């Protein structure tokens, strides 16, 4: 039973949930069993927000067991400390430090840039699957800018 665990974490308004919505859709379209978990409501008023995606052949709990995340994507450096214990020992942390944020046309596309960086590690999923999901979740006029952010993130990772 091989389940892959991904966490997105940041602050309210940064697009954490959009990031996992897009990732969840990509994995769903690829035919994986997918579960995505988060808590809405009070926690979103500018506070810490995190969202989890689990995928594989069969997923039971939607919540990643503590310390068992394979990937931790953090949108705000201050949230690394709060979330790092969720990552497994040899897990991969991706934060704004790892991507060329200075090249972002709009800082709001940081979530997509980081998703691009993550995509390098998820080798079972081809680029087109991500771009199709971006098209599905973003308004037409924002697509080009987000595609650019995604590709900048994707090309910034040397793996």
């Amino acid at each position: 039973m091989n389940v892959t665990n991904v966490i997105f974490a940041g602050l309210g308004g940064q697009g954490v949930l959009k990031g996992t919505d897009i990732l969840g859709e990509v994995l769903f379209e690829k035919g994986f069993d997918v579960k995505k978990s988060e808590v809405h409501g009070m926690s979103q008023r500018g506070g810490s927000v995190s969202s989890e995606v689990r995928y594989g052949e069969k997923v039971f709990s939607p919540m990643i067991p503590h310390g068992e995340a394979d990937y931790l994507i953090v949108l705000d450096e201050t949230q690394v400390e709060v979330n790092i214990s969720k990552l497994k020992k040899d897990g991969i942390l991706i934060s704004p430090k790892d991507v060329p944020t200075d090249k972002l046309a709009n800082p709001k596309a940081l979530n997509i840039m980081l998703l691009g960086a993550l995509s390098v590690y998820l080798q079972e999923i081809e680029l087109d699957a991500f771009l199709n999901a971006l098209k599905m979740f973003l308004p037409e006029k924002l697509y080009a800018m987000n595609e650019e952010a995604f590709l900048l993130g994707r090309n910034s990772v040397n793996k």
Partner: protein
Amino acid sequence: MAKKFLLSGNEAIAMAARDCRVSLGVGYPGTPSSEILDEFSKLGGKAQWAPNEKVSLEVAIGGSFAQGRCMATMKHVGVNVAADPLFTIAYSGTPGGLVLISADDPGMASSQNEQDNRRYAISAGVPLLEPSDSQEAYDFTIKAFELSEKYKTLVILRMTTRVCHSKSIVVTNDNIAPAPAISYTKDVKSNVMIPAYARLAHKRMRQRLADIAAFNESSEFVKEEINSTELGVISSGISYMHVKDAAPEASVLKIGLSYPLPIERIRAFAAKVKRCVVVEEGDPIVAEACLAAGIKVEGKNEMYRFGELNVGRVRRILANDTTPEEAIPSGKPPQLCPGCPHRKSYEVLRDLNLIVTGDIGCYTLGVLPPFEAIDSCVCMGASITTGLGLRHVLPEKDAKRVVSVIGDSTFWHTGINGIVEMVYNRPATGHVVVILDNGTTAMTGLQEHAGTGRHLDNSASDKLVIEDVLKAMKVDNVDIVDTTLENERYKALLQERLASNDISVIIARRPCILGVAKLAKAAKKEVK
């Protein structure tokens, strides 16, 4: 043809409601239930926000009197407000399909308590279904209507935060029994609960429960998975999913219809394993029912009554581990948005050193630094009434420092009853209420209400005007201020009203900044 989607539990309920042709959905917003009606409306369903949960359940009951499939949606504490009609409709039974969706919040992600609403099913005497993922949220919604129509009873669909907000795969159902034709038949012995009829109805209700319990003994809602005979786990709802990850080797009895329990199925299962543990979130309801029936099971340690369960905690429960749990870093707490109109309202309340009774909404965040301006928060509508109690009992000097703050949606919910009390049982020192009117139900996601002039689907509605209602109710002084642009006036006015023995309401009116953005977006769509 059956279709496949990745949906949250709330979206799955909405889709099931559409697919089984629910006539009417009525609710009051409350995390984690709020998205159900919005989604149902987007799918073409008829959905309405009621001023509170009691009203929403009653409107749904009325619809079911006409044989329509109706649902009422609310958060767990909302069921407290709707408890009055719930307990009596449990006696009456319903001619049409009637489902109450109770969204519980174990762990209190966004609530003032973590009450376990499975208790309501037992107490009122109605069946309760517990989905464990979005597929079951979809399937059980449809089955809840089938059960309701078959046994002529309200059915509670009990969701929890994780099931409401987690997304998982849903395959839709093409073979749904058609909804009955809408029709009305007079039946006073069932629908008029005068004592003579209610005595008989109570017996009918107990018989219904006995029938459903017998049905549950062989129902598809019970799933038995026999693996190891060393360990057996009885579970329901989201806990089942954690159990499957925490103890893949265990035998599992999963219960979907959690009240009335299939007690003989449980007894037979427990006899098949050496050790049988009940893993349930919240109160030890199934564990206690098993022990009362003489079934040898272990419940969880008391420390696991608190908060949500997860895979790690279920591992600990199964290992009988009662050592203190590691604290998880809490992160940055929520706060009032930059530019939120409540900020200026609270700065003045804080600086005047008042006793402020608070209420439920974004503005409850006024308790945190840098404001620390709220003294109490009990439940929806309680700010005005608890403020009145303080005014009646405190010595005059302190009584005159008491102010109640309440939001606009909360005012229409049950705050308005507090105004009735204020006018009727006026404290000797009067009272001052500040209505923080930001023109929306902000905390739960910007839902419309009776005072916004828009229905749930954004179409125009008649608009109730707070100041008109207050004036008609004979409140001595009703003033409207913008605490951001007229901060000095607000402060002076508040001091003046506090110094008098009048009963006064100050409406601090300025739209929620997120609400303005939402309306601008909606207007843009319309132009397109």
